[in-house]
């Protein structure tokens, strides 16, 4: 009886541990919200989206969602033959999905743009870059927002 019950108990324990591990170390970036996936697909069109050359730099923990510095850099020589043409940033949970879209080119010299954005809540952001050969690159970042934008009342 004892020998029969031990494997079952061990199995239950293992299953429990696995479930707990899944809850605790849930890989946030691995799950793509459907709203973002649709936008990425729309931007990319028939192109396959890859994730190496773009980098979206933004604070992981945002104190004030009204003004969030953000920087997008793309690994590109920015020559006439090989350059970035367009950079787009989308969010997951603001009232509108679009954040900004930038047009750059070989005269930019460097694919490196910065701006300041608003974030309504903790969410995922994605930066997309289109090269002149048509390839599309992406980088997704999860941010936690403490004070949300769009909630304070206008001053009288």
């Amino acid at each position: 009886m004892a020998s029969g019950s031990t494997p079952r108990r061990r199995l239950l324990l293992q299953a429990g541990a696995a479930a707990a591990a899944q809850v605790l170390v849930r890989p946030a970036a691995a799950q793509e919200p459907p709203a973002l996936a649709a936008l990425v697909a729309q931007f990319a069109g028939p192109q396959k989206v890859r994730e190496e050359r773009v980098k979206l730099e933004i604070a992981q923990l945002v104190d004030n969602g009204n003004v969030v510095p953000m920087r997008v850099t793309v690994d590109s020589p920015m020559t006439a033959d090989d350059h970035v043409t367009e950079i787009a940033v989308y969010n997951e949970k603001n009232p509108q999905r679009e954040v900004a879209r930038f047009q750059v080119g070989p005269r930019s010299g460097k694919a490196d743009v910065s701006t300041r954005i608003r974030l309504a809540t903790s969410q995922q952001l994605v930066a997309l870059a289109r090269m002149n050969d048509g390839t599309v690159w992406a980088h997704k970042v999860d941010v936690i927002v403490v004070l949300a934008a769009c909630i304070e009342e206008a001053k009288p």
Partner: protein
Amino acid sequence: MAARTLIQFPATARRGEVVQVRVTIAHPMESGFRPGMDGRPLPRDILRRFACRYNGETVFSAELHPAIAANPYFAFHLVADQGGTLEFEWQGDHGFAQVERRPIQVA
């Protein structure tokens, strides 16, 4: 009335040097989602487009959405290949349009 702008880039650049340009304009960027005193959302008033032209050729442009923070700031780069004029243009809701010009010196 023209909005206040702050435009910064190196006063002189070597030919072919990549310089950073930083641009800010005073604008509330009212998103259209924020409730006013009466509880109804305030009407949207944002800038829609920004462009930088270098001797007439567009070197950088941006499409703005309500998710851009108030007093829109952009930092970008360009190759200083000849002296001339940098022209910065903003366009927004309710016919907002502003153009600023700055000379750039290339040694």
